[in-house]
């Protein structure tokens, strides 16, 4: 039996969900200990007997037994989850309660509650995301640091800070509560940032980036699976992720290099994900709410439905960018809008739009801002200006893939 490549990461997240339901979120460290214990037992047994037929069930059963041991040993000294702890006093009720916590639907529910607890607005967004990645996706500090190009120590500090805050509450976020509507946008935003982290440039390895995108989609689908959290904005967010993720194979060419939208081989785009994303977007159009996710998803939909760059409906895209600017103005949105203007009205107009970006000082460190100038200068034949901008972009590049990409663009300034 072969080992699934994400087995331990996936099962860690599921076991933590079940165990915190039993132990209470204040005993998160105890839950993590039990998970690690189950992993150690798995190593000892599997290396002798081989990987079992159902490794996931094996790990769950082992964690369940360990949980029973812990409760029997500590029930007088420790306080467990308030919802269930009174049932731990009798052996008659103890086992069924622990069993129930490991049921698939309960685990799904607990993960949802954990997600809401991690996205506490009192925590910084970077802390929320580190917590979600650690607890709900099973990533270690080392991997999170790798994905964010942050030091491991900084990530460990974020996780520790987040967990300390979680430990102060006895219960996970209550989804029957009226606060769901207030907390949901924070959760959506964290998942949106998590996805972007995977999709845009920062990490060097294609594998990590695809994993982050996949996890963001999985967690968003968890929101979609519950009537209380499946709002039109959630649907639009899921659509947006699918439509972008569909282009991920094209964005990273075979060797893991970034390729510009113009050069992307559209046949590499994932047709199944595109269809799924478009269906989600259509369904999310019910109701009167138009979120930024709706607009961004609509822009992504316009791109994936175009057979080529030249046949793209730039009028619609620019109009969507205008609406997005009205709803949530940002220099990055303005930059993307300027690129669309250049596609429709030519380089001169595009350059005008780039220069007119409000708050462009916030783009000073963003390599693709200078790259946009460079591309348009190159197109109108001003090679020297183009080269200068590409050199600046190269200097701002955040990783090897970006550096290589700008190096190639610099070479095209030389070609006749």
């Amino acid at each position, binding site marked *: 039996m072969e*080992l699934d*490549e*994400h*087995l*331990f*990461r996936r*099962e*860690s997240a599921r076991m933590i969900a079940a165990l915190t339901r039993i132990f209470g979120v204040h005993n998160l460290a105890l839950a993590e200990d039990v998970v*690690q214990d189950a*992993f*150690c*037992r*798995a*190593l*000892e*047994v*599997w*290396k*002798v*007997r*081989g*990987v079992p037929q159902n490794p996931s069930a094996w790990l769950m059963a082992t964690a369940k037994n360990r949980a029973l041991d812990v409760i029997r040993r500590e029930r007088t000294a420790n306080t467990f989850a308030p919802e269930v702890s009174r049932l731990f006093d009798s052996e008659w009720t103890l086992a069924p309660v622990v069993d129930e916590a490991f049921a698939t639907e309960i685990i799904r529910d607990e993960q949802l509650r954990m997600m809401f607890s991690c996205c506490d607005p009192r925590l910084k967004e970077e802390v929320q995301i580190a917590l979600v990645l650690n607890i709900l996706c*099973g*990533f*270690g*500090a*080392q*991997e999170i640091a790798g994905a964010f190009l942050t030091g491991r120590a900084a990530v460990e500090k974020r996780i520790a800070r987040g967990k300390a805050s979680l430990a102060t509450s006895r219960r996970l976020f209550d989804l029957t509560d009226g606060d769901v509507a207030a907390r949901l946008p924070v959760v959506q935003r964290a998942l949106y940032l998590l996805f972007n982290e995977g999709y845009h440039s920062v990490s060097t390895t294609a594998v990590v980036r695809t994993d982050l995108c996949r996890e963001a989609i999985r967690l968003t689908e968890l929101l979609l699976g519950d009537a209380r959290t499946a709002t039109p904005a959630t649907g639009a967010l899921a659509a947006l992720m699918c439509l972008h993720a569909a282009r991920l194979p094209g964005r990273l060419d075979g060797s893991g290099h970034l390729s510009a939208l113009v050069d992307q081989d559209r046949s590499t785009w994932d047709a199944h994900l595109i269809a799924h994303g478009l269906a989600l977007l259509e369904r999310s159009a019910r109701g009167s709410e138009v979120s930024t996710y709706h607009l961004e998803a609509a822009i992504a939909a316009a791109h994936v439905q175009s057979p080529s760059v030249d046949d793209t409906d730039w009028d619609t895209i620019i109009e969507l960018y205008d609406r997005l600017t009205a709803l949530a103005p940002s220099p990055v949105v303005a930059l993307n809008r300027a690129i669309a203007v250049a596609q429709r009205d030519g380089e001169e107009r595009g350059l005008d739009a780039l220069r007119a970006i409000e708050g462009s000082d916030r783009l000073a460190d963003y390599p693709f801002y200078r790259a946009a100038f460079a591309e348009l200068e190159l197109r109108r034949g001003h090679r020297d200006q183009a080269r200068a901008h590409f050199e600046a972009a190269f200097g701002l590049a955040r990783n090897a893939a970006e550096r290589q990409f700008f190096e190639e663009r610099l070479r095209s300034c030389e070609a006749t």
Partner: protein
Amino acid sequence: MSDFIYLFRTSEEARRAAMGTPELAQQSMQRWLGWVRELDAQGHLKSRGQPLENGGKTVRGKKKVITDGPFAEVKDLVAGFMVVQAADLAQAAELAKGCPILEGDGAVEVRPVMAMDF
């Protein structure tokens, strides 16, 4: 071909560290499965041994005193065993170099099984 016993010696701390995060657990498991599979494929694996629980009891001396332990704090805990077949002690030791326990600074004690000619 002669029989050799591999005694795996490590600390509980190193053992837990090897499974410390899901990513590490995945890697450790893959390494172990790979190493055992390779020994098996090359016809060196005679017995995979038995998994051992932590802790236990020790019976010692003429007075037959029973004490608890060895405890997890012991630096040099016997974590398990395995029986391999190799041409000689040198080959058996060479084969042990692939053992993942070494990554965590553990040790493999390679002991020839005494040949019984009768």
